[in-house]
């Protein structure tokens, strides 16, 4: 089980960037799996999938700074 303080910190950070709660769930699940040892941060197939999920869930503001 992920520490509640870590979970809550992720939720707060996601909300302050005006991102959907879904993103905090994805980041929390990723970090929880790493902490529990169920997933290896060096495993390319697993982190590529996780990254794709996080990028897909992230919403961009209307104007992007170039």
């Amino acid at each position: 089980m992920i520490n509640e303080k870590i979970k809550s910190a992720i939720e707060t950070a996601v909300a302050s960037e005006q991102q959907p709660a879904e993103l905090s769930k994805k980041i929390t699940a990723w970090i929880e799996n790493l902490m529990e040892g169920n997933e290896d941060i060096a495993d390319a197939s697993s982190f590529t999938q996780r990254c794709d999920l996080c990028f897909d869930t992230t919403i961009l503001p209307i104007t992007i700074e170039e």
Partner: protein
Amino acid sequence: MAADFKILGWSVTGLRCPDHDVSFEKSANEVHKISLLQMPNGTGKTTTLKLLRAALAGPEMWNNGSEQPINFRKDNSVTDGHFILRLLYNRTKRLTIEIHFDFNDNGKFTYYTTGPNGKDEGFHPPFDLKFILKPDFVKLLIFDGELAANLLSSSHTNAQNAIETMYQLYFFNRIKERIDEHWSKEANKVGSRGSAKEFTQRKNRVEALKKRVQLVNEKKNEDALSLDNAKKQVDQLETEFQKEIQKNQEDAFQLDLAKTRLANAEQDVSTLTMLTVTLMKNPPEFSLSFSDAILALKDNLDRVKLPGIAAREFFEEIADEDNCICGREIDDEVKEVIREGAQKYLGSEEVGVLNAMKSDIKERIVDLASEEQPLKLLIDQLEEAQQAEQLARQDLDTIKELASENDPNIRAIHTKISELKKTIGRLENEVLKYDNKTDDSDTGWNLENLERRKKQAEQDLAKVTDTIELKAKRDILCRILDSAYQTARESINEGVCNEANEKIKVLMPYNHIRISSINKSIKLADKEGGSVGETLSIGYAFLSTLLSNDTQHLPSVVDSPSGPVDLKIRPEIAKLIPRLGEQFIAFTISSEREGFIEPLIKASSEDINFLTLFRKEDITQDSSAKTVLGAKESNDGILVPGKIYFETFHKDNQ
């Protein structure tokens, strides 16, 4: 991740402690919750602790060069040394870590790991323990007074590192690295909308800057660590030097005298510098011509009636009204005339500044004008004091040199200190480049500059690869991870502080010492540091908070658990120990028993494993020990189990 391991025991041969084989096993897959290993001074307690650290933390432990493997050799007749550590992890799995020293090859060491898959050369802890079996964390599991002091020292980051490792907060940064890699990979895949050459150039620049940031980060940390180590070594050697020199009374007297002279000279320089700087902040105080000029300025302002009575805003406000204060109508033409006229007056802010300036000149400078203070005299005095300081330092060096000439031991220490001081000087010069922002190039050393340049290079790459959106998403994700890490860290630190403070209250109910925060190291409320006893108690409270929780099941090995603590506090420390973790192993000497053993027995829910290990040197003592049931004899040592022997064992020289 939950971490779970116990120390089953270890065996040592050919190293700088008696050969021995110690076991903490109570039954199959179960260890004694509390084991006390009594080792009199000179038995190799420190060596055993160092070996234990080296076995748990792996070869990385030797990297800083503070320990030389050759120094672990028992004596010149020995060609090999072995330290074999037996561990139990995840309740039922066994792991053995062995360090083999080849003293024919300058103590070259080789690690061997034996786990469920057999024996392999190298240090290969199982995945579940990898994050714990690292130098920084192992230092926390093997605890002594030095660590307690370091937890509170602002030049160390042990307390923060301990929290980061225990709560695995480093994963935030690792995920960030993966997110960044992902974006880089996508940018590479997409290719360039400009020329291939342009794309390659921009991509290479981003990569080069990333490497540069990493290199500078590593080099900066490495230099800081080397500097810190060199300073620590100098402190240790200075203490040794002091001890050696005390053996010769005349030298010791001369050295103390020279030190006092240097301290006084340094104080004089400091006082005179302060006076000079204070005086230089106010030029009229040291220059009559300056104060005359300032007074002349005030007189001239008075003569031209500046700043005047009315401010520009007064007229501008009148111009804004339809009627003047005298009742006459103000039409647009008049308004314009008033506004133009208002420009001849100063604004209220300028009026305020000029009035304040005039009043300051009146109050402060008029009185001082007649008392010119001799800045030159003060600077002359400062120069003299600096020369005196230099002479005092030279005197001190000469006395040290002379003492060195008479004693080879002192000479060796003195030479080492001189070499280290040169190294410190070089490193102090070296680290200045990290703060230097003037070299703003891709090969500079200032991290702030490099990070900014990297960000710009990434923007440039995103533009040319059409990955601007992806980069914007990467930036958002990185910001989220940074912010979540900060918040989690602060909140966890606060929780650890509160819990540790509750334990400190129990340990020292009449002492108001408390932890206020953890910022790299432990910060105390209204206090810079504590006594040895206070420091140790705070260390225990902090570590027990970290090590004893629902997910971690780790051993604690403590050197001299009650040594520097008052007899009054010892029972409280003893009561805390059973809560320190699931396995507690303490290295003790006989003088620590008083006020500690009985409360520990009372506080412990199960039998304590008492062990006494000593070097064979006293025939009577050796023969008496060998009669104890379970006593184990080696070439040069005897290990005796049991409470009775433990409590009666005493060496006069302790």
